[in-house]
């Protein structure tokens, strides 16, 4: 099993390699092989010891005390201890780090107290239940304090400056090309759940950046690479039909790909207009035909693989353009102009739905958008899709000027509903809530969910949030993305974690 090397083709390249800064999935997915976390979460949502051998949670959920393993060393020889945890968490919380995700995972972080060489207490200003899940993500992984001091400022650029405790070590990085990882021979501290208790089997793992889906699949078919990320629905059948290849599929957890309607301004300040859009779109047919039946149509803002998912929402909002028309009539958009669009007081019913620049568009969401654009036109709504640079896009969507924003938000934790719908997290404040909703119920339920670890209570709270979002038509769930990983038959031991990211620690190759 030991030895050999594999090449994995990723679909995007990290903008920043700094796990404490980058909000990108790809950064977490790649760096998971280089950085460990305090605890690990399995696909059923259970937590297991990792760098922390045990932990205690204060009754008020305002502090967590971790007892750390004593045999862990960073790959530069520095010992992993309580001080290292404090240095890392403080770095994340430091506004100078400009963290785009890790800081929000730390939530109301107040500070860390070193209680002993291997004992640390992490404190919060408010009760913070999602912390265990957050502590299991790669974004709250640990850099060697020595490396932080020496080159923390250039972590984002990638390369061997990145020193962690993980099963692999960064050997080299060439921008736009590839990242080469080699085995960390001293690694004996994987999570208890790992099938491999020792160092990684592979000598070398090369990660190539191939953004074109057809190029990735072509390279996989011809054997130039061993694994390909994000096999597109169009190609899934071909990969499945190839006897030399296998496919590993897992649904994305977290926030589904949804359309978020901006309720802070007309026309979506009117609930009837929002509901009309909800009924006007034929989500079923379009998702099925564009993605060849490979992606599941979504009914809730939360993906089915996320804890707390409310299955009772399935089939709750039927496609009904006639009803959509009636709702628009009731909302006063009764007249029609020469192009067939509805008008009220001489003004046309127009919604702005900015389109991301081409290089950021995933899953052909632009094509799906064209289908929805046509369906909105049928009920008399003009949807404009201006495509500008990323700066303009951000200003439009996060500044609250757009009417519709579309995105998904991956995370294996229902607290993602707080991120997406709590009024404290409005996009104008740098948050992810582009609906700009200010609903007292949603706010109190999502806040309460952060203050308890009781699974049933959380499931009930988050179930209510999901229903409320659909009742108010704040968001229109479209599909649950699938991460389809294509790989050669010679690749063994491949599993994905709760985030659907491949874990290479236990992977080996039968090809020599």
């Amino acid at each position, binding site marked *: 099993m030991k030895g050999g090397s594999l090449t994995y083709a990723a679909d995007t390249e990290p903008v920043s390699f700094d796990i404490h800064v980058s909000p990108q999935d790809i950064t977490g997915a790649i760096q998971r092989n280089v950085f460990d976390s305090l605890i690990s979460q399995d696909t059923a949502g259970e937590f297991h010891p990792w760098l922390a051998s045990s932990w205690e949670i204060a009754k008020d959920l305002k502090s967590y005390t971790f007892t750390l393993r004593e045999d862990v060393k960073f790959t530069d020889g520095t010992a992993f201890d309580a001080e290292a945890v404090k240095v890392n968490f403080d770095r994340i919380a430091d506004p100078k780090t400009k963290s785009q995700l890790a800081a929000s995972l730390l939530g109301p972080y107040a500070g860390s107290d070193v209680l002993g060489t291997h004992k640390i207490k992490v404190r919060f200003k408010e009760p913070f239940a999602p912390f265990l899940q957050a502590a299991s993500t790669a974004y709250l992984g640990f850099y060697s304090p020595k490396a932080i001091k020496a080159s923390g400022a250039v972590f984002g650029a990638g390369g061997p400056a990145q020193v962690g405790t993980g099963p692999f070590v960064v050997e080299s990085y060439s921008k736009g090309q590839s990242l080469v990882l080699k085995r960390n021979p001293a690694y004996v501290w994987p999570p208890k759940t790992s099938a491999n208790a020792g160092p990684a089997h592979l000598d070398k793992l090369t990660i190539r950046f191939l953004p074109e*889906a057809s190029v990735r699949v072509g390279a996989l078919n011809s054997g130039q690479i061993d694994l390909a990320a994000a096999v597109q629905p169009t190609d899934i059948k071909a990969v499945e039909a190839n006897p030399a290849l296998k496919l590993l599929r897992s649904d994305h957890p977290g926030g589904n790909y949804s359309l978020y309607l901006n309720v802070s301004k007309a026309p979506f300040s009117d609930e009837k207009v929002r509901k009309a859009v909800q009924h006007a779109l034929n989500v079923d047919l379009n998702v099925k035909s564009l993605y060849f039946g490979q992606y599941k149509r979504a009914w809730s803002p939360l993906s089915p693989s996320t804890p707390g998912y409310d299955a009772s929402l399935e089939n709750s909002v039927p496609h009904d353009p006639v009803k959509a028309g009636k709702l628009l009539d009731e909302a006063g958009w009764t007249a029609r102009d020469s192009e067939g669009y509805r008008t009220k007081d001489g003004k046309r019913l127009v919604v702005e739905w900015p389109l991301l620049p081409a290089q950021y568009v995933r899953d052909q969401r632009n*094509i799906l958008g064209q289908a929805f654009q046509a369906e909105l036109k049928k009920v008399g709504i003009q949807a404009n899709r201006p495509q500008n640079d990323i700066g303009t896009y951000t200003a439009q969507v996060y500044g609250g000027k757009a009417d519709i924003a579309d995105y998904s938000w991956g995370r294996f934790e229902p607290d993602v509903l707080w991120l997406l719908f709590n009024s404290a997290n409005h996009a104008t404040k740098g948050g992810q809530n582009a609906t700009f909703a200010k609903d007292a119920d949603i706010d109190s339920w999502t806040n309460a969910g952060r203050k308890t670890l009781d699974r049933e209570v959380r499931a009930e709270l988050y179930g209510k949030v999901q229903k409320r979002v659909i009742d108010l038509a704040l968001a229109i769930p479209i599909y649950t993305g699938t991460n389809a990983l294509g790989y050669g038959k010679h690749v063994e031991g491949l599993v994905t974690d709760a985030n659907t990211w491949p874990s290479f620690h236990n992977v080996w190759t039968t090809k020599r």
Partner: protein
Amino acid sequence: MTTFSPARAVPVRRVQWRAGRLPEVAAWAVLVVVAAFAVAPGLFSDLSPIAIDPAGAMRGPGAAHWFGTDQLGRDQFTRVVHGTRPSLLIGLGATVLAVAGGALIGLLAVVGMRYAEQVLMRLVDILLSLPTMLLALLVITVLGEGSGNVMFAIAIAFIPGYARIVRAEALVVVRSGYVEAARALGLRQSVLVVRHVLPNALGPLLVLATVGFGTALIAASGLSFLGFGAEPPSPEWGVMLSEGRNYLSTAWWLGVFPGGAMTLTVIAVNIVGRAAQNRFTRRAPR
């Protein structure tokens, strides 16, 4: 006189003419069809290029849909036909603007004052050192996206090349006998430029512009392919290619037909342009 026999000479000449000009004739035929697509797309297909039909998506070419249907069930033939006009207009507009701009700069450099030539031509040199596509991308970054801006971007990227040619031609014309004569007659500088220099320097430029039109078409499609040009769902060849590129192994017709239309048009334009160039240089040897 009587020894000359036209009866024998004519057929030989006609055969030569046909064989040699067959590509040119074919190219003209392609251009006529393409022009017809651009002028009256409705004559060739009564379907709408943006009407979607998700249930009939991704059908291969057949009797109902000659070029198949795309991801949203839109008729590809209709989209290729309707995509002709926006695709050609950007290329044509960019070429006209570039020729006009190039002519202006080139003439100013020749007839203007010493320092004007120095400044203008060094500026042109700097711009020429950048690859045209890179220059166009730079301009797009500054101007923003959209069909009109793509046209301007390509025009600006092509101006330096045309300016160089105009200057070279104008330098020859300015030193020719008839311009000297006109100057000796006391003609004003402006009249001289407009009446004598410009028309005589323009001929070779127009021929080159025909070939340049083909290049501009490719640049326009390239920028649209990258998502800077025409706004979907309106059809445009570059946009269609971009949308179809991930289906090459599963639905070849999505990329092949708009790509084929583009290729045929550019090849036809080039053949016609080269032929015109040959004829022009033969007629006006220097």
